[in-house]
């Protein structure tokens, strides 16, 4: 999956949006990986991620998720993701992961040069990099930029354009705060890659613009 690759935004607002995730490789180190994923989750939780999840159980902002069982129910071969807003915290997470020597692949989505600087500070050189080349095809079917910026915070595209518009309306008429609206949208994103703080900022920006 390429679920965090195509997050849209300006360089300025992407500065507060980093997703770190672990991915056991099928047929290589997937067997016996459950305990390592659990350790990855514990390390991330130590630094208070904005969101966290996996594709199977959902994310920690959903109503029916219990953190203890979220960790306990990890199975071999499934990955997990956590969202952070700043590089200093991300650096601490990486340092702990190096120390833990989990032996499973770790990826970070975010501004590539900033992530590279962060890697250098902890003595790592990046292994592989993937760029987005943006959106192609029938772009006339797409809504305005800000809606896309929120929609692409969930890489599987589970936060609908209509829900984003509705949340803008609800914040505008003060039926919900931007924080509450962002949290509702975050529930849709199963793997926990949705950044609710960035979504909140984008909602406020859209409400002001209207």
């Amino acid at each position, binding site marked *: *999956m*390429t679920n965090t690759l195509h997050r849209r935004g300006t360089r300025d607002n992407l500065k507060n949006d980093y997703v770190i995730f672990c991915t056991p490789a099928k047929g290589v180190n997937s067997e016996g990986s459950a305990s390592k994923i659990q350790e990855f989750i514990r390390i991330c939780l130590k630094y208070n991620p904005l969101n966290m999840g996996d594709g199977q159980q*959902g994310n920690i902002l959903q109503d029916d998720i219990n953190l203890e069982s979220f960790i306990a129910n990890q199975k071999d071969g499934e990955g997990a993701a956590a969202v952070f807003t700043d590089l200093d915290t991300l650096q601490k997470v990486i340092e702990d992961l190096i120390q833990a020597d989990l032996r499973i692949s770790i990826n970070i989505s975010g501004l590539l040069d900033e992530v590279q600087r962060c890697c250098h500070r902890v003595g790592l050189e990046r292994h592989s*990099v993937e760029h987005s080349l943006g959106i192609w095809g029938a772009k006339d*079917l797409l809504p305005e930029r800000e809606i896309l910026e929120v*929609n692409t915070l969930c890489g599987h595209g589970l936060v*609908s354009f209509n829900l984003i518009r509705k949340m803008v309306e609800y914040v505008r008429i003060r039926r919900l705060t931007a924080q509450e609206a962002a949290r509702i949208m975050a529930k849709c994103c199963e793997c926990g890659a949705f950044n609710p703080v960035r979504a909140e900022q984008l909602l406020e920006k859209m409400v002001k613009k209207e």
Partner: protein
Amino acid sequence: MEIDKKKCVGCGNCYVICTMGAIYLDEDGKSVVNQDECVECSTCYRVLRNERYMPWFVRAVRKVLSTFRLGYLADVDVCPTGALTPPELTWPRSLRATFSDPTTIHPGTGIGGRGTEEIKSNDVTGRIRKGEAGVVVEMGRPGIGAYFRDIEKVTMTLAPLRPFFEPQNPVTQLMEDQKTGKMKEEILDEKVLSAIVEMKIPLERIPAILQAIEEVQKEIGTVISLGVSSRCRPDGTIPHEEWVSEAGYRLSPNGKTNIGLGRPLFHED
């Protein structure tokens, strides 16, 4: 997804939450799913909490409120009466769910989501090696969805350029013939939230592949999110950057970095 009309009270929340805009309110004020457009992602079923109210109760409350000129507005993340009903899916419609619902696992690859690992495990799999580029053509994203007939247009355009279609990718596994890019006939009318055509090519073929996508994008009724990857040089520089720039395309400032902590590390001969 199906909606039980006997239970639906027409609050419209499923219309709002639907990733494809496939749900609409019928003339009787109740929700209906356009089955052609529904991709079986089940987001409505998972996100809208079933409040388990009896439909007659909700309707009665509405009536009472309306006499006082008040309206009934359910919270946006609930289905007051639990009217959403996930159907039993059979082939080929079941493909919609395997591609669109991230909680399902692709039977062919054993991987969730859209079923691929691409560079995320490249440090241990060596999937993309020195001199190679990975290309991911994600059809339908963001927010539009894609029919396999459009996906086939892309795979048939790319196949003559002889890319190596990733065998552990569900789209590759649905091809009838990888040499022509032809997909299985029975799936062409199936729609998914998104699907990834994944391949690797020699770095110097990047311009040709991008040129082919540039052409075929005019013939499809959906959007494509495009990604390019490669294994970094020992000094951390990115081999595909120069080829993409030379071809005249702009790279995003953000992207995905595999930081190389996986073990055993893949070593190229």
